[in-house]
């Protein structure tokens, strides 16, 4: 199958995801309700306690919550992939003369739009509450690119879960088990220095901490340190481990 045809098939399937999304926009609610709740809850409940002033806290927490929203959105796409494989839809697709990889490509392409929407929503709410960017357009562009890279890495974890899980409930459970330790065990909500000592070792290496720090640096103009490089390294590592596993599981599911 030529790459052009593969892309065309993937594009058709991505179109399907977008049409679905248009019919049931409440999917967006699914992936943003949690982050929005978190924004409001953390900013107004704990903001003063953590930073002494909720305005300062808002600047700190919004980039991190964007990362969390991104993870929820990515893992949410595991559910739609899973339901395709569990139902006859996938059998129908495989009986058609299309590239083997087209359904995967379709899911990933189609869901990228969802990730983007989820992010825009989080920053929109942040802006409404007073979140301000201090690093110009190039900073925003770099941040957007970095989020995309990270999302495209995490989506391989989602793909693996979506392919191997036996039911949608399993997908949901696995996703939560994955997202909560990663986001709460990071400096998304609380600066590393204020977390309990035993947790700090993990928080410092946690990829979510790295992405959040990188985003803060790129958006707010604070010194980035090694965060951007580390995010890219983490993304590469995640892809290196999970992409082959996901593709292998996917091949096996299609036998």
């Amino acid at each position, binding site marked *: 199958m030529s790459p052009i045809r593969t892309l065309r098939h993937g594009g058709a*399937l991505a179109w399907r995801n977008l*049409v679905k999304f248009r019919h049931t926009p409440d999917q967006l609610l699914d992936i943003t309700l949690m982050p929005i709740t978190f924004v409001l809850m953390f900013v107004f409940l704990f903001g003063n306690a953590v930073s002494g002033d909720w305005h300062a806290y808002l600047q700190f927490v919004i980039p991190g919550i964007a990362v969390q929203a991104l993870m929820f959105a990515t893992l949410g796409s595991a559910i739609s992939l899973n339901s395709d494989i569990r139902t006859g839809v996938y*059998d*129908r697709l495989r009986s*058609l*003369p299309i590239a083997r990889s087209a359904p995967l490509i379709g899911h990933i392409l189609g869901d990228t739009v969802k990730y983007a929407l989820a992010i825009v929503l989080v920053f929109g709410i942040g802006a409404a509450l007073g979140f301000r960017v201090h690093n110009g357009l190039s900073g925003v562009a770099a941040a957007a690119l970095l989020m995309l890279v990270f999302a495209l890495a995490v989506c391989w974890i989602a793909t693996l879960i979506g392919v191997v899980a036996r039911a949608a409930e399993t997908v949901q459970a696995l996703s939560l088990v994955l997202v909560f330790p990663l986001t709460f065990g990071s400096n998304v909500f609380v600066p590393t220095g204020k977390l309990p000592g035993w947790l700090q070792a993990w928080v410092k290496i946690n990829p979510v901490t790295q992405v959040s720090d990188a985003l803060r640096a790129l958006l707010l103009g604070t010194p980035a340190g090694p965060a951007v490089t580390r995010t890219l390294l983490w993304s590469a590592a995640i892809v290196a481990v999970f992409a082959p596993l996901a593709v292998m599981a996917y091949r096996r599911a299609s036998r």
Partner: protein
Amino acid sequence: MIEVSGLRKRYGDTVALDGFDLATPAGSVCGLLGPNGAGKTTAVRVLATLLRPDSGTARVGGFDVVRQADRVRELIGLTGQFAAVDDALTGAENLRLIARLLELPRMQARRRVAEVLDRFGLADAAGRPVRTYSGGMRRRLDVAASLLGRPQVLFLDEPTTGLDPRSRADVWELVRGLVADGTTVLLTTQYLEEADRLADSVCVVDHGRVVRTGTPSQLKAQIGGHTLSVRPADPARIPDVVAVLGDAAVTSDGLVSVALSGGSDAAAVLAEAAAELRRAEVAVDELGVRLASLDEVFLALTGQFTAKEVIA
């Protein structure tokens, strides 16, 4: 068009296919008939390139389903046993997706989608999400999707399960139309009537292999043979009738029937039965010999019923 020989497939300890053979000429309808778990779906999945057999070969349109799967996929359409339409899309969108995946030119795709929707009586519901469809509408859409690309070979796994008699007849009509256009159809079914009405040849499947093949009437004549039935005027005389006919089955509405072994002469059996009943002085409302139904054939072949020896 479809040639299968010696297919084997096992799932752990379960042998799903155990030397499955099949040959279906182009432009004909082959019906796979068999009890639950016989291996029908497994066979269809192998033929539709979804499942790799452990051994044996299967060719569709001359192409090997394992080594030339891509070529096979160019030829086939599949309606699986379980619904393969997307609930969140409208009926038209589901078909448009298939058209896009088949890379039909835009104008042609639009025309074809409209045509198929119309033919399946779904034009009015085309703009509604499939979530709101009835089971029968969903099934029709499923079948519609499988023939959108005008496949040369169509696999239908229980296409009419869950349809009302009217929709079932509609699907039969469509299948006949396709066959008239030269499509080869392999269908599995639980409905003997469906096989009887639609199939040029019927393959009875049991325990992962084809146990008998023939036209519906051949099967009925060979295996089922004839059934003799008697309805005494007075239901109280049923025991006497049974005494005369021997090992007979009695239905709740008072019909006593006996399956005759193959090759018996219907006229002779009838005359003999009539004479015996008169000797026993049983008044009779109804007396006759008919070919066994495909149901009886099916039950006889899959061991859930044994044809009884003829009386006298």
